[in-house]
């Protein structure tokens, strides 16, 4: 417990680096947030600069921003005039989280299942075809899969709507499938590899020598160690899914956080872009942390060392 707490403190430098890079990257940019507006009279622009503290020295602005972030306030959006970044995040994130969460769940369950089957049928036709499909899943980009699925399933067959969002299952199916595909494929390959390695270990030989049925050997003796690499992959995987959702939300016209981010980026809505980057950064950092804890919890040796 104490260990976890100190690890949690160790996340602070990471967060600080995240915020700092995001902040200075934006400020390095030529021009300011109001340059894109129709020509503003200089005095109004000056007023705006004062209002948003853009007239202050950069370092001062940086610390001001830090102070603001600590109160969990990302400031007003430049583009969506009546909205704060916090409100936009509160609006978009539940949608993104739903799609992302379902995709993670699907990818984990399906990916490990495929991986285990392939490992048990190692070097057979089943194995080769499963892994061939998995390789395709890794290779084919999200933004290729999505239009093709829309074309086939929505436009030609007409089974599901092509896009939009109303929290209905029909509208979730395609985005979740598209988002989950590469991760599923990667997890399948990862699981197969680690399962095969575990199946060659001495303790699996012991389990077989005890006369246990093969299914029990797999489920009780091999599954947990074989899943460890998959567990540690889940952190980066989630990050990948979040990034992927930027594209997915755009293609399927889903009003998630990713689409706000892209809009913000294209319109130079700096507060929004920074807000989303920092928000997602925090989520990814926290998820990695949870994955680390989970990994330790699953591995008795690490658990033991922590107690020591």
């Amino acid at each position: 417990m104490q260990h976890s707490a100190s690890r949690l403190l160790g996340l602070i430098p990471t967060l600080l680096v995240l915020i700092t890079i995001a902040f200075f990257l934006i400020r390095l940019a030529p021009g300011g947030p109001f340059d894109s507006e129709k020509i503003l009279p200089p005095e109004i622009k000056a007023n705006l600069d004062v209002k948003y503290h853009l007239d202050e020295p950069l370092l001062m602005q940086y610390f001001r921003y830090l102070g603001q972030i600590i109160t969990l306030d990302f400031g007003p959006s430049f583009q969506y005039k009546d909205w704060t970044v916090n409100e936009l995040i509160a609006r978009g994130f539940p949608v993104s989280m739903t799609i992302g969460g379902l995709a993670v769940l699907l990818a984990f369950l399906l990916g490990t299942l495929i991986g285990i089957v392939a490992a048990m049928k190692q070097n057979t036709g089943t194995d080769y075809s499963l892994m061939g499909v998995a390789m395709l899943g890794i290779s084919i980009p999200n933004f290729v899969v999505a239009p093709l699925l829309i074309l086939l399933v929505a436009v030609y067959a007409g089974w599901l709507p092509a896009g939009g969002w109303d929290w209905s299952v029909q509208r979730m199916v395609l985005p979740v499938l598209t988002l989950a595909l590469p991760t599923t494929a990667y997890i399948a390959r990862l699981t197969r590899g680690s399962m095969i390695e575990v199946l060659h270990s001495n303790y699996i030989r012991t389990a077989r020598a005890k006369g246990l049925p093969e299914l029990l050997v797999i489920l009780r003796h091999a599954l947990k160690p074989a899943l460890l690499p998959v567990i540690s992959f889940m952190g980066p995987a989630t990050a990948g899914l979040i990034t992927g959702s930027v594209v997915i939300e755009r293609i399927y016209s889903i009003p998630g956080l990713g689409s706000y981010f892209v809009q913000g980026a294209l319109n130079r809505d700096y507060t929004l872009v920074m807000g989303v980057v920092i928000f997602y950064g925090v989520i990814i950092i926290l998820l990695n942390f949870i994955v680390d804890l989970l990994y330790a919890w699953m591995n008795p040796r690490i658990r033991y060392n922590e107690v020591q």
Partner: protein
Amino acid sequence: MNSSADIPAEDPFAAAMAEEDVRGRSLWVDAWHRLLKNRAAVISGVIMAVMILLVLVGPLLSPWEGDFTDWDNTSSPPSLETGHWFGTDSVGRDILVRTLEGGRISLLVGLVATLVSLAIGVTYGAIAGYYGGFTDRIMMRMVDIIYALPFMFFVILLMVVFGRHIVLIFVAIGAVNWLDMARIVRGQTLGLKNTEFVEAARACGVDHNAIIRRHIIPNLLGVVMVYVTLTIPQVILVESFLSFLGLGVQEPMSSWGALVNDGAQDMESAPWTLIFPAAFLTVTLYCFNYIGDGMRDALDPKDRL
């Protein structure tokens, strides 16, 4: 792991025999033979060779220019009669030529950005691994921190902030992709530096830089080559992703990602504008992944079982 179950490969006696049999064949020749036995990797290699040739030579042979607009044939489907084998887009540009020209950019980005990440990653990792101790801890802690950041967002941010210049694409993608390389190289270096031949070199008074250059780096070559092959498709993917979002290369330049994006706009009326660039992109990624996989298996046969 598997070796204990597979006694013939592990027994000192059997190992000695095997060594006797393969003596004279170098590690590289051996790996090459194993790679040639991997059907998927060989086929992928051939396809990639053809693809690269097509992309380089194809546009020169085509009657069409990439930015030529054939107003008589806008959004025309693939046909031999019009001379647009892959059809045209909504302003009458030839999809075949555009796909090939886009391929130049995509492959170029893949190669250059990978080299950037290679240079940074290998240098960083080799230094951390070789010096070890405190230096290593600080350097790797930094990698950990950067690793935890949502790097894709930073690339997007970079593109937004600095404008969409192709050199920037190389640098931005390369600069965020070196982390894995640094980790792998560092791990290998740590292992290598305690081997006898490095000890021997050190005992002979060879200085640090020379040891890194002459002993560590050549021995890292295998791992690095595998990793480069696997990084190229990743980088191509990132570039396509950016171009798809409208943040990558700018008109009149094009890349597969940008073409897929264009195609996706018109896919209902002119699906060929989506399908051809998408197919080229996917085939390329698929092949690179198989080649990388095959190389890893060939250089590290113990993973193959």
